[in-house]
């Protein structure tokens, strides 16, 4: 039995009366103005700064600031000096960070959501609260906690030592984990082909270094803190997934894994997109952990584009370069979001695939 909701037919003229139009604008005015003053105007000014030679004194719109075209963008992408190298290093770091954090946090949060959504689990509320707790704690507090846990003589290394493992010097170890693995199999210096050439001022061998041990600690932290939030999104989505389809699958003899993979997961697609997108954006914008924790060290291996942008502007007084980095970051995030959207788009079921679901000539 289904219920149909019939939209009430609109009486009166179809065009909105002028008075209502004005009232509409008046009611939306506050948010438009707030967004304008605190978002659009600053963004436009930052865009201007990124193509100007503003040095940080007085207004960027004053007469003695001039347009320099793409000079600032060129300095960080093709300049050949420290700015380019720093930008290359920060991109390397954040790419590895994103590559590891996004899949890990998505898988973990989905796993936790499925666990705490199971009807037979006792004390679900307790688990949900526990998993969600890191998300409501301030990042700064967690960074400080992490610095303690991962210090050389900290809890993590103490626990590792019970198993005979000599833990690393987490936050002061600049070695990339891929390099460590390569070193273990005797590839200490890297093949000549990768060392001799590079991109953005760092060699391909350095690009392949992997996250440093210090950055790995931040990766663990990000997974730990964000999984709770995303778990909540998945829990909400799982509640919207009807039990009927699952029961139908059970009748057809699908195993638990098949039901999850072929029935539940496809219905979570919109949430999956949200989680992946939020995760991706959060990763690329990583800043406060670095600002409060390591300031880019050890060996610049936790330098991120967002922190580099801040550092270039506020510490080195290269405001143009700082804004340029911010806008390049913006373009990168937009690009990856579009790619993700395209990958996760709703596809029509292909004919070959549709045929598999047809049961002995019956049309479904």
């Amino acid at each position, binding site marked *: 039995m289904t219920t149909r909701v019939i939209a009430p037919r609109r009486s009166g003229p179809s065009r909105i009366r002028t008075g209502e139009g004005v009232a509409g604008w008046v009611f939306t005015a506050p948010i438009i103005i707030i967004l304008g*003053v605190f978002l659009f105007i600053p963004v436009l000014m930052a865009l201007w700064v990124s193509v100007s030679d503003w*040095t*940080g*004194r007085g*207004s960027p719109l004053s007469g003695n600031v001039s347009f320099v075209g793409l000079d600032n963008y060129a300095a960080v992408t093709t300049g050949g000096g*420290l700015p380019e190298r720093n930008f290359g290093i920060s991109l390397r770091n954040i790419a590895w960070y994103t590559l590891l954090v996004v899949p890990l946090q998505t898988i973990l949060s989905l796993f936790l959501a499925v666990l705490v959504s199971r009807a037979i689990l006792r004390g679900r509320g307790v688990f949900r609260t526990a998993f969600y707790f890191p998300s409501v704690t301030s990042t700064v507090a967690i960074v400080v906690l992490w610095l303690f846990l991962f210090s*050389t003589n900290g809890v993590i290394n103490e626990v590792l030592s019970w198993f005979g493992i000599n833990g690393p010097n987490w936050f*002061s170890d600049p070695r990339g984990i891929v390099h460590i693995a390569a070193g273990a199999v005797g590839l200490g210096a890297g093949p000549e082909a990768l060392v001799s050439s590079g991109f953005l001022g760092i060699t391909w061998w350095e690009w392949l270094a992997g996250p440093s041990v210090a950055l790995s600690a931040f990766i663990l932290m990000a997974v730990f803190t964000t999984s709770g939030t995303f778990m909540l999104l998945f829990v909400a989505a799982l509640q919207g997934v009807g039990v009927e389809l699952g029961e139908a699958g059970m009748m057809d003899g699908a195993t638990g894994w098949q039901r999850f993979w072929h029935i539940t997961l496809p219905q979570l697609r919109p949430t999956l997109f949200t989680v992946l997108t939020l995760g991706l954006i959060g990763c690329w914008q990583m800043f406060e952990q670095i600002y409060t924790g390591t300031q880019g060290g050890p060996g610049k291996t936790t330098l991120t584009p967002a922190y580099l942008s801040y550092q270039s502007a*506020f510490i080195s*007084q290269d405001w143009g370069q700082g804004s340029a980095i911010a806008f390049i970051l913006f373009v990168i995030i937009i690009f990856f979001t579009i790619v993700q959207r395209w990958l996760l788009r709703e596809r029509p079921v292909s004919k070959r695939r549709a045929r598999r679901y047809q049961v002995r000539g019956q049309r479904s």
Partner: protein
Amino acid sequence: MTSNTRALASAGALVVAGALVLSGCGGSGFDDTGDSGDAGDGGLTSSDDALSILIGSSGEAETAAVEEAVAAWSAESGVDATVSVANDLPQQLSQGFAAGSPPDLFYLAPEAIAGYAGNGSLVAYGSELENIDDFYPSLVENFTVEDEFYCAPKDFSTLALIINTDLWEAAGFTEADIPTTWEELSAVSSALTTDGRVGLAFGPEYQRVGTFMAQAGGGMVVDGEAIANSSENVEALEYVQEHMVDGTFAYSSDIGAGWGGEAFGKQLAAMVIEGNWIGGAMSADFPDVPYIVAELPAGPAGQGTLQFTNCWGMAADSPNQQAALELVEYLTSTEQQLAFSEAFGPMPSIASAADAWTDANPDLGAFLTGADYAQFPPNQEGSVDVIADFNAQLESLKTGDPQQILDSVQANLEAVTG
């Protein structure tokens, strides 16, 4: 009724929106500025405006001491002055300069001067100081950019060798054994190294390792020329590397300490290279660890250390620079600097306070004698990034190639020394 309510609501929304527009645009953020401050060489501005002073404080003792001194000056001169403590000084300063409303006086690090001087945010008032001849010449040089002495050094620190006397005596050493050469340093470090403790520790940065470069006769910039990859510097890094490999030297971070003082206090190292600030940390956190302060040993080219200092920067946009100058002269006077030294530990930046300071701090004399042969980190615009990159490479000095590290530093440094 409903239309009345709607009209009221619309009016209310308009008022709110209007208020937002006003408050949004009324902030001083992007007003055109520059009329009050262009005092490059045409004298200092003067007015009845109150002074604002922004400091980056090391703690309550420093804040209280500065507040007290400024209040005393205010009472004497009749000019109001308020002290604020920045939690992120470079950021707050930059915001002030961009908004055209910077503090009148502020702590300023030497490496930040070139950047702010380049965009005209600072006024070079050094030559106007009455007590200009009293400042140590190396400090004046530290704050001189393109032949302009920008600001008065407020105090300074140098690095020395801090020795744990318990461990020293346990190893059978006496005061006569305090190392004066690299060979002796190697010998005592080796003797003091035990399981779980290194002989000598220091932070993984140029700001500590640079002392060896100075002792070898090297440095970063001499007469405006980058000399980062000189053979002296290579020799220094090779010496450090050799002893990191044999386990008698270590970076504080490699033995689980945040900085040298922590490594020393936790007795993870028998000796560290640190500055005056270690005194406060030791009495606060590790009061039971006895130590002495000795001069750093001489290298192949003699003695060498590094000095660190901050100055009282003055804003070009300040409307009352004349009063600010008087306040600086007051704050850098002999009496006042001795009071600061007693309150939070830095060394006076003026020669006339040296004797009184040495009398008051007989055990810390090594820090002050360091002023005679101290080098300072490069202060050219962009040098902060060069040092940051150098520090990043120094972290892996133990396994790195000193020549290669210094070559890359040289290339970066040449780009900023121009």
